[in-house]
């Protein structure tokens, strides 16, 4: 009650369901209405960031400003409004033999969210981030003006917006270069590793490398088996690579709607432990290459309805950090040990090798290894654990991913993102009155010295 017409007061959270905040929301349906008003506001895509990045005093829901505007099926270029989901983009482009140049592990993120967080995928070591495939953006700035920017036009705004967490303005339209694919299947190979050192060795082995790679870590294995993992490498299968059974109609790119395999309700610490053990042995025993449909390979979690509820009402934090190549083994083993000693079951632990840092000033990836862990918000002790992890990361010259963060402090953030000062100068120039402010930016004092 007490809502003004067109403004809805509601409680909101990110994907981790922590923190939960009371926000005002507006939901434009027309492109013209996707605009800034006086006061503080932040754009929101699909709320797939885990923490407080898409929360604020006033949240602008972009979900209905989601039209595909132009698609060049020959050149592989798509122009769309930023609110559209990756799933919808895939449904339109796959039949023409095109795929996303970079995809996060969920197809329920919006284009705008992928730009604002400069998301990375399992191919980062080869293809860089999402932002590096963006040809042009149309931005709606704090003064409600529209400007286009790209790597050659308004570059400063462009590289401050990519990875800029919605703080430079509203991303209205995205012009994206797509990737050619020969089929909707991936050729996948699994390589089991008995411990962390072996995992790193597998990542470093050029003979095993492929377009996509990621290691799933059995985070319940400790001691000598700490960091035991399965490295999963893959590439888009060429039609002639596919076994006869998958050729023909399936070889043409097709998307399909997502089916839910599992209800989150069946997951608890015990089943998670069982799952991890079973998964390690089952997947680890798959020594021969196999073919996986893209939605199984890229979006396994999308198949579990509401899996983010499995950690209960208090939610969880997904802790994702990256540490530079040198010292990465020490850092990651310290991180894993710290978490394992804290006795908090994590459903998911993923390790990935990242390639070089790009020109986007607040972009997360840097050459090294990134570790992602789910940590349930069971009690206040979690904060101490996270501070300890932050210290390890910082000590090794690494950083924490803002799209997943809910607890960093202004000081640690500044130490982790050395190019913040340059970013802040651009923010100051395009949004001097701090019209774009999220709970994340307020917590970290982003936009201020």
């Amino acid at each position, binding site marked *: 009650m007490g809502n003004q017409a067109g403004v809805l007061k509601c409680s909101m959270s990110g994907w981790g369901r922590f923190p939960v905040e009371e926000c005002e929301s507006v939901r434009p349906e027309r492109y013209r209405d996707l605009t800034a008003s006086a006061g503080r506001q932040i754009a929101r895509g699909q709320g797939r960031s885990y923490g407080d990045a898409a929360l604020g005093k006033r949240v602008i829901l972009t979900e*209905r400003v989601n039209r595909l*505007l132009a698609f060049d099926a020959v050149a592989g270029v798509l122009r769309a409004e930023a609110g559209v989901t990756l799933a919808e983009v895939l449904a339109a482009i796959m039949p023409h033999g095109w795929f996303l140049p970079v995809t996060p592990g969920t197809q329920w993120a919006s284009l705008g969210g992928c730009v604002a967080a400069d998301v990375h995928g399992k191919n980062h070591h080869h293809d860089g981030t999402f932002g590096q495939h963006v040809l042009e953006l149309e931005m709606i700035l704090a003064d409600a003006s529209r400007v286009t920017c790209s790597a050659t036009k308004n570059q400063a705004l462009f590289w401050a917006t990519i990875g800029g967490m919605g703080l430079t303005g509203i991303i209205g339209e995205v012009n994206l270069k797509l990737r050619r694919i020969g089929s909707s299947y991936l050729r996948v190979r699994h390589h089991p590793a008995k411990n962390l050192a072996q995992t790193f060795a597998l990542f470093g082995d050029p003979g095993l490398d492929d377009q996509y790679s990621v290691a799933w870590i059995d985070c319940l294995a400790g001691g000598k088996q700490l960091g035991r993992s399965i490295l999963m490498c893959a590439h888009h299968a060429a039609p002639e690579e596919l076994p006869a059974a998958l050729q023909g109609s399936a070889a043409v790119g097709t998307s399909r709607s997502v089916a839910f395999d599992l209800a989150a309700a069946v997951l608890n610490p015990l089943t998670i432990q069982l799952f991890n053990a079973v998964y390690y042995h089952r997947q680890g025993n798959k020594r021969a290459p196999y073919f996986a449909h893209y939605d199984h390979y890229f979006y396994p979690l999308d198949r579990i309805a509401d899996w983010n509820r499995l950690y209960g009402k208090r939610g969880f934090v997904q802790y994702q950090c990256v540490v530079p190549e040198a010292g990465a083994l020490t850092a990651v083993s310290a991180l894993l040990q710290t978490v394992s000693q804290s006795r908090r079951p994590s459903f998911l632990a993923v390790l990935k090798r990242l390639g070089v840092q790009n020109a986007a000033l607040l972009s997360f990836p840097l050459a090294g290894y990134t570790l992602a862990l789910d940590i349930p918000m069971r009690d206040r002790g979690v904060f101490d654990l996270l501070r300890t992890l932050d210290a390890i990361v910082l000590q090794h010259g690494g950083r924490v991913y803002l799209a997943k963060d809910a607890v960093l402090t202004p000081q640690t953030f500044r130490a982790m993102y050395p190019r913040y000062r340059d970013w802040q100068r651009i923010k100051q120039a395009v949004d001097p009155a701090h019209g774009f402010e999220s709970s994340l930016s307020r917590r970290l004092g982003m936009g201020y010295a």
Partner: protein
Amino acid sequence: MRKVVLILGATSAIARAAAGEFAEQGYDVYLAGRDAEELARIAADLAIRYRIKAGWGIFAAESLSDHGRFFAQAISNMGEMDGVVLAMGYLGDPIAARNFDTGGAEVILINFTAAASILGHCANYLEARKQGFIIGIGSVAGDRGRQSNYTYGAAKGALALYLQGLRNRLYDSGVRVITVKPGFVDTAMTYGMPGLFLVATPQYVGRRIVTALHKSADVIYVPNFWRYIMWIIRLIPEPVFKRLKL
């Protein structure tokens, strides 16, 4: 031969969902409304997602004398028309709409007079072709007058009567006329409004609009339970009803 559907009020979220459902079934679409920028965006979107032809044209409901020309232009753009969805509507401010000089006239004009006017042109065309359909979006608000929004309700109620008459007239020529009565739908019209309950998504309403074509019901409530809610509401004797704060 491809089929073509005309969508009046195409910028509404319900209309957009319905257009998507039609497009998915292989229909080409012609989108009508006042907002050129939006119509162009929605048309591009439908054409890319469903690989259909999506045309659009400016349609200002209040210019009644222009409706004939508009309809002829839609036909000449698309070659033919197999059916029409009337989604245009205007809620306005219910208090202001109590009086005609502060908005009531517009509510009646858009929801009823203009709707009847453009549907008249569509009916003549489809009657001559001896096939096709007209789907009109009314509202549960048109089932019984209530103090909270009776001007809008009266216009929607009148629209339902008009559609009923058309259905009777067009029966012999094989043209289907379907009345759709949604309850609350989560659109720009209702966003942030207090007192909403049992709110349906526009996607759901859009799907029901298209599936209605394959079923026999002439009047559908969306979701279905509104049929029973409105049945009970209509059953309440007037001497009791007039005392209620609804």
